[in-house]
């Protein structure tokens, strides 16, 4: 009873509105002076010219509204003007005075109370016009003698940087254009984004006020090992070992009282549940792998504290489509290793399907294809830990509830 998808329509969770071309007329309501217009509902999409004036005038209106919105003069009040100085050798920007709400989730202060910004934070703030950045020539480089350098230093200091200049100076230190694109995309969507501590180049940012490492897995696979050993012993004692039929049927004919009993015999025990990388794949290779967690991401929340952010909501790994392909098993394994894991019971709370989809842990891969970002969540699913109900629902004398329960999620349609 498969449908071919057209009837089911779109999955709301999967339709990204930003993928479509916007009708910018709603901007006219916002940019109008004192216009308390609300954002209108999206209308029907036009695919081709139909020859009416109505359509062309609608298109013109939309285009004009967009230009109008873009041409609005942007200004800053003196009160919230924040400035910073870019330090090329340290590859950080020093904040002179912190003003504005953005610092709640950005930057970090050192022991002296000076606030420092990471290059991506600096770029993001300069780009959106919240910060003015100045360039400082370092004394050590420019003035080795130290006598005539003073005047030069005086000149170099307080040179304001354009957005282009900030890009040129700081982009490399962000780890590449792709990383910055993902960073700014997430920030603009409202998220709180910090680099993974492993990816920090400066000690100031490296220690974080939250536990982000997975506790070492304890005793996982014990049961299966135990069963395996005892099972083998049992087999040895009762059935003899060594030579025999390699094609011995897994389900010998006999009297079985439930299907679950049969399925137990059909299961193939795998000694290791988690995959352990061999010497070939581990070590050096794993460290240089592009598949490492790049950003820790928190959902926007009003009471967010930089010093004690709590565990992140998402882990994001940024890769470029230019130099990566679908990750190999070793790469996937290395990626998951950095992420804390929930136990089976917690995963199952959301139901069987949801639990498998979310997995024990998951990481969001942001693949950047020439500036186009697509996010995909990779979840460590562990289908092997879940055994479905195989026995038919108990033949019901007045047990309708049981019937539904066994079936699990009700059939769609």
């Amino acid at each position: 009873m498969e449908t071919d998808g057209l009837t089911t329509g779109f999955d709301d969770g999967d339709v990204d509105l930003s993928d479509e071309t916007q009708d910018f007329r709603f901007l006219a309501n916002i940019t109008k002076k004192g216009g308390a217009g609300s954002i209108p509902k999206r209308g029907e999409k036009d695919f081709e010219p139909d020859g009416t004036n109505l359509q062309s005038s609608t298109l013109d209106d939309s285009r004009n509204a967009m230009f109008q919105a873009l041409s609005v003069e942007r200004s800053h009040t003196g009160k919230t003007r924040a400035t910073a100085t870019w330090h090329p050798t340290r590859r950080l920007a020093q904040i002179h005075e912190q003003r504005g709400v953005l610092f709640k989730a950005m930057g970090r202060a050192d022991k002296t109370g000076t606030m420092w910004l990471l290059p991506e934070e600096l770029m993001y703030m300069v780009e959106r016009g919240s910060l003015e950045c100045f360039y400082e020539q370092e004394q050590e480089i420019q003035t080795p003698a130290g006598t005539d350098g003073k005047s030069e230093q005086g000149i170099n200091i307080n040179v304001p940087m354009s957005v282009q200049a900030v890009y040129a100076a700081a982009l490399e230190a962000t780890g590449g254009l792709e990383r910055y694109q993902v960073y700014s995309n997430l920030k603009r969507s409202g998220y709180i984004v910090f680099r993974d501590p492993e990816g920090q180049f400066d000690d100031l940012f490296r220690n974080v006020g939250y536990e982000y490492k997975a506790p070492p897995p304890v005793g996982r696979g014990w049961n299966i090992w135990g069963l395996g050993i005892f099972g083998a012993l049992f087999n040895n004692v009762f059935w003899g070992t060594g030579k025999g039929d390699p094609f011995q049927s897994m389900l010998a004919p006999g009297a079985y009282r439930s299907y679950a009993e049969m399925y137990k015999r059909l299961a193939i025990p795998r000694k290791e549940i988690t995959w352990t990388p061999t010497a070939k794949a581990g070590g050096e290779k794993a460290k240089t792998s592009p598949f490492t967690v790049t950003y820790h991401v928190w959902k926007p929340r009003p009471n967010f504290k930089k010093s004690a952010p709590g565990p992140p909501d998402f882990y994001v790994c940024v890769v470029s489509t230019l130099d990566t392909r679908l990750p190999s098993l070793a790469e996937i394994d290395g990626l998951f290793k950095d992420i804390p894991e929930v136990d089976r019971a917690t995963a199952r709370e959301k139901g069987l399907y949801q639990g498998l989809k979310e997995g024990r842990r998951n990481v969001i891969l942001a693949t950047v294809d020439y500036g186009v970002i697509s996010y995909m969540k990779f979840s460590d699913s562990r289908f092997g830990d879940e055994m479905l109900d195989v026995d038919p629902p108990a033949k019901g004398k007045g047990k309708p509830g049981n019937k539904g329960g066994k079936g699990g999620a009700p059939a769609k349609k």
Partner: protein
Amino acid sequence: MAETSANGAAAAAASTAPNKPPYSGKPKRPNYNLIHADPLPVVLYHSPPLIPHNPLSLLHHLYLFFFPPVQSHNVKYIGVFSPVTMSVEVRDPTAVLDLWNKGFWGKGSLSRSEPTWLNRELRRLGDTQVSETSEEITRRRRDQRKEMKKERARKEKEELQKVKEAEAKGTEENGSASSGKPTIADPKVVVGLEAEISGLDETVAAAEHPHPSIPAEETGLPTPPPSSDELNTSDGESKTEVVNIGTETLPVSVPPTSESPPAQPAKVVRFDSNTSTKEIPAQKKVTVQNQEHLQLMLSEAFFLSYALGILSVTTKDSAEPLPLEETFKLYLRYATFPPLPESSTSLTKLNPDNSFLINYVVYHHFRSHGWVVKSGVKFSVDYLLYKRGPVFSHAEFAILIIPSYSRWEGRDENIGKEWYWLHSITRVNSQVKKTVVLVYVDVPTADEVEGWDCEKDGLKNVLAKYKIREVALRRWIPGRNRE
């Protein structure tokens, strides 16, 4: 043997609603919980209740333990390996019915999934005792959708006409020199659009009256299949079928019918609900030779043969069932196309990087955890996972097998697929609300499996050496995860 009157499936469907009078409302769905109660084609043994303080009962139970009165599966089904379709064919109607009802094995060679060809044929010839098939329901839904689209196109056209008329009036009133907005529309485009809309009408009309003489292709629109038979063969799987019929010499002639000519549409006679069931002698009964068989994927067939031990496979050359190791070798050879030569596959020097083995490992893995595993070729994946079965719910997971060679010396690990490939597959599957699961299979080396063919349970040990790791994929959209 195949021409059992009103076939088994129909009988099963009918038996679930035995004494109900036929009524004209929406046809009731058969009780799938009853029909598909068993997840495997084996028999359960329901022991009598144990009464602990009764020594006789204890003794009885002891006796039953050592001499069970019921064998779970002494039945052996026979399948014929078909090298052309690379599948195993089952033709015995009771076997087909059993395999479908108990675990949804295989698919009908002339149907989308459940073997319903006979029922469809009987209904087409006017048999009134057969219930509606899923193919018919699907077709009806598609027709409704077509109708809806036609209606929508008509409304859009009307709307457009109205706007145009109003605009024409406006320009007349204002005069040609008025400062009205310039018409940028290209008249050619407008003509093209109208032609397209009228073209849509034509195709719909063509679909309503299935005369293939109307050349709907001229409108440039995808033509809906003109007749039901074509619709059934449009599913892609049937390509192989055509070949099959060609090689086999099946009787393709018009199936013999008992009485009336098949071209004449049968009358559906409705009875009042108060008429007693005994007084309905006029029900029409048709006998048709069943030309459909059940096709099993090689993984399915091997699971039935090896894991459950209820299927024997023969070849076209002889009726003698092949021993299991020969079947295994056959499948290994036919894992690739063109098939490997017989000399290159030996059991002692088993190559673990054989696509049949890798596919089977994954198949067995999910089957043994209670999933119903079907082919995912329609959705560009390897397998689909159903909970309980396709009649109960849609498949939730789509399985993509990614072999991995971390234990192989000198084999480059990172020859992954390109991202666009993955994106296209996840897009297709999110349209049908399925979650794509990457199943990484870490393949053992040839050294690791050496000597398996003289061990007891050797194959099971080989299968256990493949490591499996599932990674579910979902699109993540920043705007929808903020809460």
